[in-house]
């Protein structure tokens, strides 16, 4: 009943505030469109897996900066490829190299192809002309960079807007005194937190639907997985963003100070979300990614949208996001003790 009232009130506030609604719904679409137009690449040394003896090719590739890993069987090697331990797998069939590229990151695909081209040229001078047969485990040759960025950016946008809007509306609740008034009624502290999650949950569901639909259908971002999983990921991510935004709003005394969390909370997450190849970063920086919600959402989004994976592959990411939300919610309920101990 009270939760219902909280949800209804939040929905009504949204409906009255057309600008915020537009920001949540339209702004991500504009930026995503821009991103699909603008992009630049980056140098990366791929990991190559080999099964049988391809020694001359291996040495050449290693000389060109690649890391070559030798596997004892085809099964082990394919598994390593699917786990993204290696970026491409080279096997020999009738003395002809067969290349299987993992394929979920177009920038890595390109560097693998470049490496192949260079090494083939060097090998070919001594032997007959070699023309490798290239195939993809996921994705395809014509996969664009936006196909890789899209899934991550969907997560980034949802996190960004929900974090900011939830944080600011809870901050306002505190500064205008409505929080005090709420707490002078018999509402329980957890009912306030759950009410917020519910009210924003409905709005973020619509936002997630719209952004995902626009990205996939209008911008044509690659999508081979289940749309339901995309929604699940975005909802769990927005719950994390909401509860974190509410929590951090306690440390801001006005809207401007809430904005100051952007470079602190949002930007590092974008950089460590997998948008740029993480393998090129120092190890300690990669480790920081493990405490960032967007990292898990981005990982799951790529698994679903590009690699077409199901629940068994994203479940760990989902549980971690759920755990984040639970921890932040609990901290929120505890933080409200500052205003009322009951």
């Amino acid at each position: 009943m009270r939760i219902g009232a909280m949800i209804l009130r939040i929905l009504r506030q949204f409906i009255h505030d057309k600008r915020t609604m537009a920001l949540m719904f339209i702004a991500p679409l504009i930026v995503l469109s821009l991103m699909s137009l603008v992009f630049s690449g980056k140098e990366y040394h791929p990991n190559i897996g080999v099964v049988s003896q391809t020694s001359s090719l291996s040495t050449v590739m290693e000389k060109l900066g690649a890391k070559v890993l030798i596997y004892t069987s085809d099964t082990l090697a394919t598994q390593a490829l699917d786990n993204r331990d290696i970026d491409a797998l080279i096997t020999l069939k009738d003395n002809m190299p067969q290349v299987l590229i993992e394929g979920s990151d177009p920038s890595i695909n390109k560097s693998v192809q470049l490496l192949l081209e260079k090494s083939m040229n060097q090998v070919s001078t001594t032997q007959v002309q070699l023309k490798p047969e290239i195939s993809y485990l996921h994705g395809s040759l014509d996969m664009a960079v936006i196909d890789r960025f899209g899934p991550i950016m969907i997560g980034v946008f949802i996190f960004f807007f929900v974090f900011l809007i939830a944080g600011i509306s809870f901050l306002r609740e505190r500064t205008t005194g409505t929080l005090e008034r709420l707490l002078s009624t018999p509402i329980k502290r957890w009912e306030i937190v759950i009410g917020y999650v519910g009210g924003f949950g409905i709005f973020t569901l619509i936002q997630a639907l719209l952004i995902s639909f626009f990205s996939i259908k209008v911008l044509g971002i690659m999508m081979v997985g289940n749309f339901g999983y995309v929604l699940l990921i975005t909802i769990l991510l927005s719950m994390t963003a909401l509860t974190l935004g509410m929590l951090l709003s306690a440390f801001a005394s006005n809207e401007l100070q809430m904005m100051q969390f952007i470079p602190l909370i949002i930007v590092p997450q974008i950089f460590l979300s997998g948008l740029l190849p993480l393998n090129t970063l120092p190890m300690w920086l990669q480790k920081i990614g493990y405490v960032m919600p967007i990292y898990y959402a981005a990982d799951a989004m790529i698994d679903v949208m590009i690699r077409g994976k199901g629940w068994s592959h994203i479940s760990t990411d989902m549980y971690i996001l759920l755990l984040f939300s639970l921890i932040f919610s609990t901290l929120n309920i505890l933080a409200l003790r500052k205003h009322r101990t009951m």
Partner: protein
Amino acid sequence: MINNDDQSVISVQHVNKDYGSKQVLHDISLNVFKAEIFGILGPSGSGKTTLVKILIGMEQRSSGDVYILGTLMPKLNMLQQIGYMAQSDALYTELTALENLEFFASLYGLRGQHRAQRIQEVMKLVNLKEHLYKQVGQYSGGMKRRLSLAISLLHEPALLILDEPTVGIDPILRQSIWRELRSLTAKGTTIVLTTHVMDEAEKCDRLGMIRDGELLAVDSPQALIDATQSSTLEEAFIHYGGIRS
């Protein structure tokens, strides 16, 4: 229940409050009786707001006891019997008056026909009935104050706590609000209000004078004036304040 006085709606016993080393309330003890208007008179910064927040449990007291209707506070379900209006209007300005009222009414468990009826009643009481569907952002300061008062009356609380209720309200309206407060006490509602305005304090049944967190005196306005051989409440306040400091 340790509370001996059955007549007391509020019983405050030796309440102290400090923020770190700064003590804001010193050993406050007072009783508020049923169906009276009890005024807490003092300048801003004297500890009035802290005191009323301690009454309802929004602030923690450092020591001492507070009983409301015989129950040791803070207690969550006692809030159902208390109407509280803070100094700030605390309204959702992007919502209409009706939506604000519906929201808070629901928090107090009011629903359906009864809720709709109470909303009509309180809006009539504060003379805002024709502005029910207006967005609160378009309200004037005085209208917001009245809507805020209307919200605190929704659930027909036995005890009404008002922090500076008539700030920014024009004299005619102030008079009508006082009339309404009187009619509420006639129905048995107990009212505690804070004020820094002397002529408003004079309308209270009994007054507690507070300064720098110390309760200087508690009595009816006339008795306070008589006891200090003053001609006005202001003189009486100065008299009590002077003795202590």
